[in-house]
């Protein structure tokens, strides 16, 4: 199917999310839509899928104007969408999920599961999806769940597939196989719109790249373009993709974790005997697919989750099972994984958020009364030093963009005297410019001879920051490696192969 967008404009009040966007996807083509968060990619896709009505412009399918009023019409016209967050019923089987809403029926309105299962097996074979139709979705790994979404779209005879940030949740190996699937779909004549902000993937799989920025198409590029070219198109200025680090010069051991066992929310062991050492002047990167115990591990370190057994020592002092307050006072800095849940109070001012965990400390308060002048001075200084883009330090944190919200947390943590920094997914959801900034701050902190632990499921980030890389799998450390090892071997560690088998 050939899809053409002509001059699509979508406004929300005074804000123009899409401004005269035109692009054309040819049959059998993998067309990449590259742009930062907030550039207008998702708005455009929602317009295309009938979830939003454009203010101007038209959509043409095979050269014919085809208005799309709702998502049902989009599906009927052969457009399929694989959302970033899967729309699957976890307790249903693959077949049930695929037919949901479009159940093939036989007499007396009974669902014809046999026919549905056969359809799925046929599609699955044709495109090498390798999905068992009878498996229960919640038992499948994330990569396979995504294939169920793809199957669902294909079963509705989709000729054009929209993949919205499909690699965000995948391991490197899963990303590779997704790309293989995308290529085989394209070879069978399906068109693919691949939305992402990851440069490597675009270069690996796209036939054509359209870059959008601030709602405009800023240009198209060939996959042969260099990463830094693509990045500067996307951000609008030159971006440094690698972080410059001073030579690795580790000092004494700062943080020592021994045989840590921590339970998860459901009472199962989430961290299963983890031991790790971090030295002064070292960034220890903790890699791993999300949900392998990293969250619980960090929560135990900062006193937000009880430690069942094992010890944590900081500069030789036992800090196991402290309260969060004691952990903060011991000098642990924490950039939480979910910044809006744990890191900020969105309804409160930027200035208040900058002292969120030190409100009682001098000079911000005296005898229980806050010194708002000191709080404001602090905010003015940090907004300047950390380049936080805000119209007012009294404005609510919710008015900041995601990148600037993260800068507030980074500024708050790095501006107080720290013994050790723990950062969880410090650049999740941030644009390239903010990632660059946060990375520089973390490395600067390290260059001053401080120890830090960076937890990330982004392999690029782990490789860019880590002086050593520990990989976590199912609550255990499956290996500690040097950042010079290949991506593949780290990928293998992330899927549970131990370092002996992975070090090939």
């Amino acid at each position, binding site marked *: 199917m050939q899809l053409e967008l002509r001059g699509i404009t979508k406004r929300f*009040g*005074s*804000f*123009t999310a899409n401004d005269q966007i035109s692009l054309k996807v040819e049959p059998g083509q993998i067309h990449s839509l590259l742009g*930062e*968060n*907030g*550039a207008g990619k998702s708005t455009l896709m929602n317009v295309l899928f009938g979830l939003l009505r454009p203010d101007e412009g038209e959509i043409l399918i095979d050269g014919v104007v085809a208005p799309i009023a709702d998502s049902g019409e989009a599906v009927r016209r052969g457009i399929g969408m694989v959302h970033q967050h899967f729309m699957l019923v976890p307790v249903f089987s693959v077949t049930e999920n695929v037919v949901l809403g479009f159940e093939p029926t036989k007499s007396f309105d009974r669902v014809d599961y046999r026919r549905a299962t056969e359809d799925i097996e046929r599609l699955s074979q044709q495109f090498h999806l390798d999905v068992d139709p009878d498996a229960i979705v919640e038992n499948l790994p994330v990569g396979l769940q995504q294939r169920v979404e793809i199957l669902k779209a294909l079963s509705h005879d989709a000729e054009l597939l929209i993949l919205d940030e499909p690699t965000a949740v995948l391991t490197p190996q899963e990303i590779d196989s997704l790309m293989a699937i995308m290529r085989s779909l394209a070879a069978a004549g399906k068109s693919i719109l691949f939305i992402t902000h990851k440069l490597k993937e675009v270069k690996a799989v796209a036939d054509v790249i359209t870059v959008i*920025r*601030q*709602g405009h198409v800023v240009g198209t590029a060939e996959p042969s373009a260099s990463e830094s070219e693509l990045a500067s198109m996307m951000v609008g200025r030159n971006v440094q993709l690698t972080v410059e680090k001073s030579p690795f010069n580790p000092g004494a051991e700062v943080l020592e974790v021994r045989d840590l066992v921590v339970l998860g929310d459901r009472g199962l062991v989430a961290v299963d005997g983890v031991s790790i050492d971090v030295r002064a002047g070292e960034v220890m990167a903790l890699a791993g697919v999300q949900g392998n115990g990293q969250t619980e591990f960090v929560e135990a370190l*900062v006193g*937000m989750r009880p430690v069942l057994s094992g010890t944590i020592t900081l500069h030789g002092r036992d800090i196991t099972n402290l*309260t*969060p*307050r*004691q*952990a*903060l*006072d011991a000098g642990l800095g*924490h950039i*939480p994984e*979910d910044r809006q*849940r*744990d*890191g*900020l*109070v*969105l*309804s*409160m001012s930027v200035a*208040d958020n900058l002292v*969120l*965990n030190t*409100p*009682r400390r001098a000079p911000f*308060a005296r005898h*229980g*009364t*806050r010194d*708002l002048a000191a709080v404001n001075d602090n905010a003015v200084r940090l907004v300047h030093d950390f380049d936080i*883009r805000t119209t007012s330090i009294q404005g*609510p944190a*919710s008015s900041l*963009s*995601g*990148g*600037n919200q993260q800068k507030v947390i980074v500024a708050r943590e790095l501006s107080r005297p720290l013994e050790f920094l723990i950062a969880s997914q410090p650049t999740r959801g941030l*644009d390239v410019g903010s990632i660059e900034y946060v990375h520089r701050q973390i490395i600067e902190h390290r260059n001053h001879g401080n120890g830090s632990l960076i937890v990330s499921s982004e392999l690029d980030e782990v490789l860019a920051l880590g002086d050593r890389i520990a990989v976590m799998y199912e609550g255990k450390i499956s290996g500690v490696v040097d950042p010079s090892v290949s991506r593949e071997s780290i990928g293998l560690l992330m899927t549970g192969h131990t370092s002996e088998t992975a070090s090939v």
Partner: protein
Amino acid sequence: MSEVTAAPPRPSLWVRYTSSSPIVVTVFALVLGLVVGALIIITTTPAVLDAWRAIFHGWDGVPHALNVTFNNVGAAYRSMFTGSIVDPQGFWHSLVTGKGWTNTLTPISETFTYATPLVIVSIGVGIAFQTGLFNIGANGQAVIGGISGTVVGSMLHMPTILHLPLTLLAGIAGGMICGAVPGVLKAYTGAHEVIVTLMFNYVAYAFLLFMVLSTPFQQPGQQNDISRTMDPSAQLAPLFGSSSGLRVSFGVFVAALVVAFAWWLLNRSSLGFDFRVTGANPSAARASGINARSVIVVAFLISGGLAGLAGVVQVASTTHYIDGGFLIGNAGIGFTAITVALLGRNKPMGIVWAALLFAALGVGGRNMQAATGIPLDLATVIQSVIVLFVATPVLVKEIFRLRGVSTASVQLATTGWGS
């Protein structure tokens, strides 16, 4: 990020005016409340209905019906105004002749008398709301505070300089004890404070009846459910002297102190900062090292203490004794406080205005009932409609086409039932 680069066009004066302050939404809600009240008067007053039935009976049927309608609605709202604030004619008369000041000032004095304990208890409820806690038991806490304060005020005897402060402190202590129980239960066992505080109201009522019927606290020589009377040394004296005939008492200064304390607590103190962080985002509060348990307990102590203070202020400034019907039914200021706090957006000064409005509607409603026969319940309806429209700013926005009233400008008072 990229979104903010497009400068929005400068909004019109009207839009900026209406979006600048939640007060505007409140004023519109008040207008709507009066409109709904008028509709109820029209549809329930026989004289008005008869006039409309008779519109075809003569050439002037419609003008006559309109006239009757405006007269009735006007009379109702006029009596509400003159009964709660001031009668302009009486005011002019007093000004010219210098006489009748008692009658002229009685309405506003009554409004302040009713508003005084309401402000105190509503601020307690508002502080709990700001911490993310529902204190539905403020009424019971006020009852206990009223009892403990009246016990000290009537059964101990000492000079005013000691007696009055001790009486008020006893009220605070009673409310604190009553508020501490749900606080501790929530902090240490996770028991939901709505259930516990609600049930504690009944415990308080039962305790009240026990106290005024079966203990030496009962007025000696009485069989009825009535307590001893506070010593004059424990009473909050009328502001203008007992010969003035105006009931408004030194309790207004107590309320003013409470407002000042609450303003400091919520806007300037570290403790209040912890309260607000906990109320706005419990996860972030925990991650920031705030001890949720102590915040919950302390917030409930303050909330309950203020409710108890309201109870004893009510007794010490008006009746000076309590009976078995103390704060029951319509007089349950602890329940009115929930809506007052909501209307005042849990801010001390907002609560003062909201409490004055509710007090005026209540006091004026009584005058309306006496003057026009329209039942007092109409005042309750108006109060309810105001709260309804304040709680649903989107609706107000639609009705008045207030473009640009961002939902952010009307923050939800609480975070819901979650804890």
